[in-house]
């Protein structure tokens, strides 16, 4: 987030709740600007109303980078529910997702972004904890 803030070609819009990011990205899309929402799985769960009633119903693309938490190797108790329900929730909403598990697969992100426009609905690109904290001590950030 700090690096995004420092990039003069990007505008970072911090939101109080993830569904707002859905709206901001949609507005940017109609303004001809590329946009990406950053959130965790809890944010995906919170945004189901907007995905269903807005993105899916109107075929408005949305590219989301999300942290993949609550997996078997994730010991945090506050991530368990996200891990149990998150992917099934996306399946129910017919939202595609992919997972980047290794740092050398990060170059797939531009193609994933284009894919979100092609499928005309949200597309989630998960980043594992290993990717998110690459080069940072293992347990930093919870």
């Amino acid at each position: 987030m700090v690096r995004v803030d420092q990039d003069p070609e990007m505008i970072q819009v911090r939101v109080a709740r993830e569904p707002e990011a859905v709206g901001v990205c949609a507005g940017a899309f109609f303004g001809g600007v590329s946009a990406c929402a950053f959130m965790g799985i809890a944010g995906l769960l919170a945004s189901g109303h907007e995905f269903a009633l807005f993105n899916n119903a109107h075929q408005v693309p949305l590219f989301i980078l999300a942290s993949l938490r609550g997996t078997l190797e994730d010991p945090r108790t506050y991530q368990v529910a996200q891990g149990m329900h998150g992917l099934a929730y996306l399946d129910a909403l017919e939202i595609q997702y992919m997972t980047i598990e290794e740092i050398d697969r990060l170059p797939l992100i531009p193609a994933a972004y284009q894919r979100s426009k092609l499928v005309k609905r949200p597309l989630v690109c998960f980043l594992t904890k290993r990717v998110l904290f690459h080069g940072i001590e293992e347990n930093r950030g919870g």
Partner: protein
Amino acid sequence: MRTSDCFRLLAQRRHKALVVCTLGTAMGEWYAMTRDDEAFHMHAMGLAASFALGLALARPSTPVWLLDSDGGLAMSLGSMLAEARHQPANLVHFVVDNGCYQIIGGYPVVNADQTDFASMAKAAGMRRTCRFEGLQDFAGELDNILTAGKHSFVVLNVEAESAPNVPVPFEGPELKYRFGRHVERQEKIVVFGPHGY
């Protein structure tokens, strides 16, 4: 003060403003007044404020009018924080405050008789906020609001009325492409790629 009278004043001044309407009173009354096929008629409550913020930031030289409602704003009060942080100079956020959900028969918005959205916006950090209870006052200030070149948050305290029987005759993907193509033509930009998505 009636919503339709307020919107008539706005419609006369629209020029090239990109208009975003939230589901409910704002969308129904604006369409009944204007038959506006080029506005974005938001069919999901609670999303219009953040949508308009993203649009205004993406098109900083074009006026963006958000025709919001008290019920829609109440669903996403947190969006006022992001709006206050950015306060795009080209965004005017109108809130039609009739104290009720018009299209479901007038069921009251929670705490409607006590909530002051203009004060909430000011407390969130928005610098230009105002509230109008009479049409004459609104008409007298409207040109100043629209030509100031500054972000404004404007609450219109209007009468609760029955919904106009003029539904927006398109939805879903057609809404997306109508609005997107309008933005492309007016702004001379590309929203959809060469294959139409």
